[in-house]
């Protein structure tokens, strides 16, 4: 029978397994604490990320400015100053106007959005709120059926999804509808439109509470529909300038100077970043507190684990193990225990996160994107490495404080 000499590392791993019982409590402590820390970091990161994901996913270079002035002087001036600020900026103006569609059973308020001819991106405000703040974001209108760009011919239109479902239950395209364009003198021009595209509903298409027989409709149509009349003759006219430029803030400022209501995504994103940064400090403090608590816990847990092993250490020393041999064994054991449990705690937290997502999916119909920032990863990594090294060393050091004879004389 040939017996190979055991390596000191595999001996340490073996001793961890053989002393499973005395490492139990210690392992529970480590897994709980690290799960708590990682869970906290992941929860904060994910909730921040999910709070701000709409805002942060917006293109920062978009500015949307609107005004109710009938003749559009402000928009003309803005157009000039945009060209002054950034000659490479693209910008368009479109109008919106309200009307009522009476031929349906519902009381339908429709917003007509007149967009310029050509392949023009169409932007829209969303109001969206986090726990504390309400943000305006501008998102490109998302086409989901039919045309894949807002290139509308004279008699073509795009409508929102829920309205489309009522006019075309079969779901075919194009569908013809007659739409009244109301003028400021309350006269009406009926135009026949081919619905060639369907876009996602936005917040304005939601039906207000207590108005279930009401439907909010958005119809995008070409500016050609205004025909020979002036845009300023449209009923309840709003002008909207959309600009795309690297110098979004300057354009925003100049629009505000012209008395317009303007939204600059970049500014709001910077504001959100401030909130996220403030959370970093909190995370750091929580991590330190958890680490201190865990440290105290680990200290006593490791001491207990070591108490169970005094006899073993005494015997090993007596038969000739040097204190370095013992240090090395307990250093390895500490490392193995710490690393195993930290890995386990990562698994625990990931599983809980997945379970939470499943719960949200079933019960709340929204799903969080689970996110963890680099900063949190660094915090967790530093805590793990720091505690692992400190306690493995301490464990190893304490293992040499054991008097050899004391545990041998006793029977």
């Amino acid at each position: 029978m040939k017996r190979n000499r055991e390596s000191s590392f595999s001996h340490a791993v073996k001793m961890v397994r053989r002393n499973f019982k005395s490492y139990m409590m210690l392992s529970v402590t480590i897994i709980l604490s690290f799960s708590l820390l990682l869970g906290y970091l992941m929860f904060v990161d994910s909730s921040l990320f999910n709070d701000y994901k709409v805002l942060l996913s917006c293109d920062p270079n978009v500015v949307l400015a609107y005004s109710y002035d009938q003749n559009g002087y402000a928009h003309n001036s803005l157009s000039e100053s945009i060209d002054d600020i950034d000659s490479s900026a693209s910008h368009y103006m479109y109008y919106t106007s309200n009307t009522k569609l009476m031929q349906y059973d519902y009381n339908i308020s429709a917003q007509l959005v007149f967009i310029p001819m050509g392949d023009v991106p169409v932007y829209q405000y969303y109001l969206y709120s986090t726990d504390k703040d309400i943000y305006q974001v501008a998102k490109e209108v998302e086409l989901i059926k039919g045309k894949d760009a807002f290139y509308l011919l004279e008699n073509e239109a795009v409508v929102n999804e829920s309205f489309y479902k009522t006019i075309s239950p079969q779901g075919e395209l194009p569908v013809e509808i007659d739409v009244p364009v109301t003028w400021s003198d309350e006269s009406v021009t009926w135009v026949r439109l081919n619905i060639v595209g369907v876009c996602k509903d936005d917040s304005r298409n939601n039906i207000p509470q207590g108005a279930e027989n009401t439907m909010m409709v958005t119809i995008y149509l070409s500016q050609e529909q205004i025909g020979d009349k002036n845009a300023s003759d449209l009923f309840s006219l709003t002008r909207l300038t959309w600009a795309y430029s690297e110098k979004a803030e300057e354009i925003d400022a100049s629009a505000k100077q012209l008395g317009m209501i303007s939204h600059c995504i970049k500014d709001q994103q910077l504001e959100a970043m401030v909130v996220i940064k403030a959370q970093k400090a909190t995370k750091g403090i929580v991590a330190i507190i958890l680490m201190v608590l865990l440290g105290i816990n680990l200290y006593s847990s490791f001491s207990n684990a070591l108490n169970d092993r005094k006899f073993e250490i005494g015997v090993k020393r007596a038969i000739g193990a040097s204190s370095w041999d013992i240090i090395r064994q307990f250093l390895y054991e500490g490392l193995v225990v710490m690393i195993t449990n930290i890995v386990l705690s990562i698994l625990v937290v990931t599983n809980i996160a997945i379970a939470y997502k499943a719960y949200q999916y079933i019960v709340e119909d929204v799903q969080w994107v689970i996110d963890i920032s680099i900063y949190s990863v660094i915090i967790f990594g530093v805590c793990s490495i720091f505690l692992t090294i400190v306690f493995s060393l301490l464990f190893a050091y304490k293992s040499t404080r054991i008097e050899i004879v004391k545990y041998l004389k006793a029977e």
Partner: protein
Amino acid sequence: MCNIELKLEHIQKSYTRPVLTDVNLSVFNESYIAILGKSGSGKSTLLNILGLVESFDSGEYCFNGVKIRQAKDYAKLRLENIGFIFQAYNLIPTLSCAENILLPTLYSSKKQRDFDELVELLDIKPLLEQKVTTLSGGEKQRVAIARSLILDPGIILADEPTGNLDPYNKEIVFDLLQKENKRGCAVVLITHDWDLGNKAKTTFVLEGGRLIEKK
């Protein structure tokens, strides 16, 4: 088998009261020394000093030419020169018999004795993979002896190795010690058993902190 030359001169050791007052002893490869004495007279203390696991207060101890100083650890000397046998066996309960026997080899690259031969000698082959907690006293002591011999020490220090054993096992242990001594391994044996004591080449009684040779 390594050379052994131990010399204790005027060794003193006290805890709350003096235990060893003036111990003088020389040990060589061919020595077979039995130490007898009343309980509490300091026999174990002396053996632990000899075995470099306990320090002494004053006197001189020379281990193979190395002058032993207090508060210094001589793990390597212990590992490669000394085989310890205890009355309480001191096997590690979380290790199997074979693992206990091979434990010293974990710490030393010194050539070990042939494992199978040792197992044969001590008649413990069926026990090797058994948990030590389930062994009988005699079996435990044989495993412990195998552990003490695995690195082929120059001296065996046995503290009441037969204290818990029946006459049959006592005989086995005694035979073994004798065999090892014949091979050139020094034996220092503590015992309460006068029979066993008298079979040694030299017999001492520890009394009043001194060793007195019995003729």
